[in-house]
């Protein structure tokens, strides 16, 4: 038994290190100004896919990412950790996509990838925390979905069993393949890079990246198929242009505001005993406590 698994991986700005120039005037994200990382929950998703491949060795795990040229970094990172192939969907037609336009583009690319048994993605991306792309891709492809997965417990030729963790408990669901699964951060962490694979895939490149390197490299690249990261633009996928990019995005950003809190008149105290006791007495007197 072997499966075709697509893992959706997004390159995201590291929101822990966001600066003030993070947003452009039109309300979209200025990605160039930020350090970029592999969306954390997409690594959990990749691990679930690799575990299926461990069990069923003929399985193919393909990573698909939509983003700018530099998003090829996440594809290489995935190859280092055990994925088989990388696909990048890139081009200005996709710019300004909200989650619906993103899902449409991803679903068109997946259709082109042939028969797929499972799509595994992260529950949500840390730049927006929307958690919408997975279910929307599933809907576009007519796949059922299991969200908030913590573990893919079992797969057979026709079925998949998944344990999911939600706010108040756990649920085990069994459904038919093909299936889309979104994976929680509470799932098993992704295995680390494998040194041999790093050596092997270090020079894997997309067509755009290839243009930037010297011709000496060309011959070597041509001879080694595994170094080819597939890069598709809008013209490579079957699509209706009105569903792509800004025109395919029903949500518009009306405005953004910096948050300024109106400072309160506060009482300033130190850890001094008399001051703490004074405060407690005030709080008791005005019935806040006691």
């Amino acid at each position, binding site marked *: 038994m072997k499966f075709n698994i697509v893992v959706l991986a997004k390159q995201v700005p590291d929101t822990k290190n966001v600066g003030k120039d993070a947003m452009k005037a039109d309300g979209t994200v200025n990605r160039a100004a930020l350090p970029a990382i592999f969306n954390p929950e997409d690594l959990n998703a990749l691990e679930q896919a690799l575990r299926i491949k461990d069990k069923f060795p003929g399985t193919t795990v393909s990573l698909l990412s939509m983003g700018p040229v530099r998003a090829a970094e996440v594809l290489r990172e995935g190859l280092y950790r055990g994925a088989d192939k990388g696909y990048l969907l890139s081009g200005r037609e996709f710019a300004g996509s909200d989650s*619906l336009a993103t899902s449409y583009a991803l679903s068109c690319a997946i259709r082109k990838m042939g028969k797929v048994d499972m799509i595994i993605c992260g529950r949500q991306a840390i730049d927006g925390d929307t958690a919408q792309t997975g279910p929307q891709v599933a809907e576009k492809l007519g796949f059922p979905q299991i*969200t908030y997965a913590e573990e893919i417990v079992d797969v057979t030729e026709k079925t998949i069993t998944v344990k999911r963790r939600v706010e108040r408990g756990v649920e085990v669901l069994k459904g038919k393949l093909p299936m889309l699964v979104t994976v929680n951060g509470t799932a098993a962490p992704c295995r680390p890079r494998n040194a041999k694979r790093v050596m092997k895939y270090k020079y894997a490149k997309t067509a755009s990246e290839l243009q930037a390197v010297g011709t000496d490299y060309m011959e070597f690249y041509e001879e080694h198929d595994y170094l080819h990261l597939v890069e598709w633009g809008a013209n490579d996928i079957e699509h209706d242009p009105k569903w792509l990019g800004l025109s395919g995005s029903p949500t518009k950003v009306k405005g953004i505001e910096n948050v300024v809190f109106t400072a309160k008149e*506060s009482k300033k105290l130190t850890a001094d005993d008399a001051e703490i006791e004074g405060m407690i007495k005030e709080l008791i007197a005005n019935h806040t406590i006691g």
Partner: protein
Amino acid sequence: MNNLIVYLEIEDGIVADVSLELLTKGRTLADELKCNLEAVAIGYQLDKIGEQVFPYGVDMLYLADDKRLSPYTTLPHASVLVNLFKEIKPQIAFMGATSVGRDLGPRVSSALFSGLTADCTALEIGTYEDRKARKTYENLLYQIRPAFGGNIVATIVNPDCRPQMATVREGVMKKEIRDPNHKGTVKKLDVSKYVSDEDFVMEVIERHMEKSKLNIKGAPIIVAGGYGMGSAENFKMLFDLADTLGGEVGASRAAVDAGFVEHERQIGQTGVTVRPKLYIACGISGQIQHIAGMQESSMIIAINNDANAPINTIADYVITGNVEEVVPKMIKYYRKNSK
């Protein structure tokens, strides 16, 4: 036609708080838009749903009552909503930003090509000017949420697509009965017209749902700890203070991520929203995502060894000092002065 509708989340026959909160907000917005407030319940044995939601001002309640619709699975609930929305064309639809709403919402919005904004912290009605198309839209839903790692709040609109959909976390909106005697209309849907047999592909093999043991949202006093507490061990003094004052312990995401306390205690944009009588922030710096979940507390005490911590700007009492020193003193002087 073109009303505002709320998807009711139901567990064991009880409508979830988050749905009642959305009805409360929805009632106000529907008044402003001069349209009806509607609700839809999908599940099994829904006879008692009406009496739970009518006091919140629901004009029309749709019931999709069928044994196969409980417990929740994605496809049949999505089919009911998609087909119902095609029929009644609501202008606005709300769901809780729970694991159910966040599973269902995107699926429905994709099928209808309507936009969806997750985790809104405020919802308002207003106008929108599309400068490029030179078009002005009246009475759009402003979907307001903190975006992008904080520091900014974005207002999102869906000018052309309907329904305008949004999810909101539990506790963000207030829950308030409109009129205890209000009675709306019930309309039972012929479920077989809304779902197909293929929708029932998912088998629920096991299900353990627990009632939440913690009631942080309802606590009048919250003692919240942040990364500055340093350890799970140090959090014990916060439990002592909370016990002494009759409150609950909350935490920042950094404290939860560090494993000091369980995730259920997280307060903020991705945790619960609280508005207690008294909020004591101990070793919390006060980033926007945290403040989003507690700024409406009636009184705020900030204990921080950094006199310039952002939390201090919204605090009523700013205590500049170490938590290890201040918290035990608060316990001591409360015991001494209370009777």
